[in-house]
């Protein structure tokens, strides 16, 4: 039994560690790309097309002779930005709605819950298609679409967790001594539900990166010449028989980023509170 417990403990921390390292690497690549990339991401050189990895081109070059490592770094920046903004939209709007629903109860609560149900009926890709059909394809519209999808996710999680806090005596006694429900929300509810929100944000970050890559692949997200992992995969399909690395590297980047965030989210959940259960939405 002790051995099993040891392994569980090790695995938990191993997951957290691997997740933190992978996420850290992606963030590092994104940050470095702000100041420096090995080559200009859009420097075309037809004579150097489809080269293998070398000292000058770490991951080789694509069908235009552009440096793949540089494009992957800018792609990391793109994915991180999408994740931050899309999760930010969902976090701010969703948590506000969830807290309000839990504090007020009654018809406000019903309205938020039913509203979340309706938005949930639109899968992320579908709502993105709806938005891009009218406002045109582009990174900003893709981010907004993914952000809207995130609002009900956070509203539900915040509402559920906040209701549990409101059932606690310390929250109720606040009301008894004349504290406003806004003050109780600020002093008791929000700090107590913060861990759940952090875990959910990590997982939604991964979902956002996957969704943006899919939209970019379809041509509805980040537009060329800006490099994005999803679009790189689309371009790769034409040339992958000649040069498989074109199809492997961008996908590997998405995979490692999403894996890292998921492991980080799971690890944080186990560390912060083993009883926490978060919703995982595809």
């Amino acid at each position, binding site marked *: 039994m002790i051995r099993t417990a040891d392994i569980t403990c090790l695995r938990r921390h191993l997951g957290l560690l691997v997740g933190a390292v992978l996420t850290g690497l992606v963030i590092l690549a994104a940050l470095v790309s702000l100041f420096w990339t090995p080559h200009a991401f859009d420097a075309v050189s037809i004579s150097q097309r489809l080269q293998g990895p070398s000292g000058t081109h770490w991951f080789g070059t694509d069908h235009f002779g552009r440096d793949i490592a540089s494009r992957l770094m800018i792609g990391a920046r793109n994915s991180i930005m999408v994740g931050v903004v899309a999760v930010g939209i969902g976090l701010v709007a969703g948590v506000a709605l969830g807290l309000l629903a839990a504090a007020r109860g009654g018809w406000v609560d019903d309205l938020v819950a039913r509203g979340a149900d*309706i938005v949930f009926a639109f*899968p992320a890709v*579908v709502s993105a*298609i*709806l938005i891009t059909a009218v406002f045109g394809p582009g990174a900003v519209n893709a981010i907004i679409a993914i952000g809207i999808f995130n609002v009900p996710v956070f509203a539900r999680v915040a509402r559920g967790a906040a209701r549990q806090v409101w059932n606690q005596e310390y929250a109720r006694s606040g009301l008894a001594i004349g504290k406003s429900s806004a003050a109780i929300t600020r002093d008791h509810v929000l700090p107590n539900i913060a861990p759940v929100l952090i875990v959910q944000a990590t997982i939604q970050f991964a979902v956002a990166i996957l969704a943006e890559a899919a939209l970019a692949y379809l041509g509805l997200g980040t537009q060329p010449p800006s490099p994005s992992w999803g679009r790189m*995969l689309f371009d790769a399909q034409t040339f992958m028989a000649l040069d498989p690395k074109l199809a492997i590297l961008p*996908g590997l980047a998405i995979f490692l980023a999403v*894996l890292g965030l998921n492991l980080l989210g799971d690890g944080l959940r186990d560390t912060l509170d083993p009883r926490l259960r978060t919703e995982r939405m595809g």
Partner: protein
Amino acid sequence: MLTFLARRVLLLLATLLVASFAIFVVLEVLPGDAALLMLGIEAQPDTLAALRDQMGLDRPALSRYLAWVGGLAAGETGVSYTYGVPVSQLISERMSVTLPLALMALVLSVVIAIPIGMLAATRRGTVRDYGVMGFSQIGMAVPNFWFAILSILFFAVLLGWFPASGFPGWEAGVRKALWALVLPAISLALPEAAILARVTRTAVLDTLEADYVRMARAKGLGPRRVLWSHVLRNALVPITTIIGLQFAFLLAGSIVVEAVFALPGLGRLTFQAVSKRDLIVLRDVILLLVTLVVIVNFLVDIAYAVIDPRARYAA
């Protein structure tokens, strides 16, 4: 139970009404002139006028909305601007690809996920458990369209076992048609199986600790009997919920995978409707996808209430 059912049906209709209104507002009110959006600014004035007339854009938005929803309720869809045929015909043609694809993916996902999820739960803390959990983490992180691209590269381009893309049609024979759907179905199934395996593991672990399971063991039932008739049966409630949701999302989520394999399914239709700005097709298809999600949720709620009477009062 009847009151519960009536309330759920009302809620279902209300949700569909609000969702259809939202679709209508986004597609036809926000752009201002929907006909101009569809044809672009270089359109001929008379073509533009004809489309405006066809869409009834001279009428107030509310009456157009009612005409659309009323038409759908009567089973009439609009006529696609780009294809020149009723949208219902387009949808049923495309469904003949998407529906079998989604079903294949769902069956694959269930067949993979439930046994390995149960294995992980019953062998908790062993190498097998970590193997299953590792597969689950990997499956959830691999984008399905990347897996699709790699499977084309490996099984179609290098080995030549499967067609790289396209769909021969059911006329070409059931075997040939199904064969073309194998790689897409695997690509769609992988992430779903990964999630389902995790859900199964958690659900089985939760029921393994229940009193009635200990009771069943105490009265001398064999481990196999306990697992299949006591544990799995009770664990099936959360598992079924996820399977239901996954089916709805498979129908909608096949958009990207259908694009990778150039399959003429519902996703492809949606995507083409966006590129060509065929709002008449788009509003019906999106409402159909949303309706499927809502109906599946409704059925899951009903199933809950049948299994667990407490759920009838919760909502």
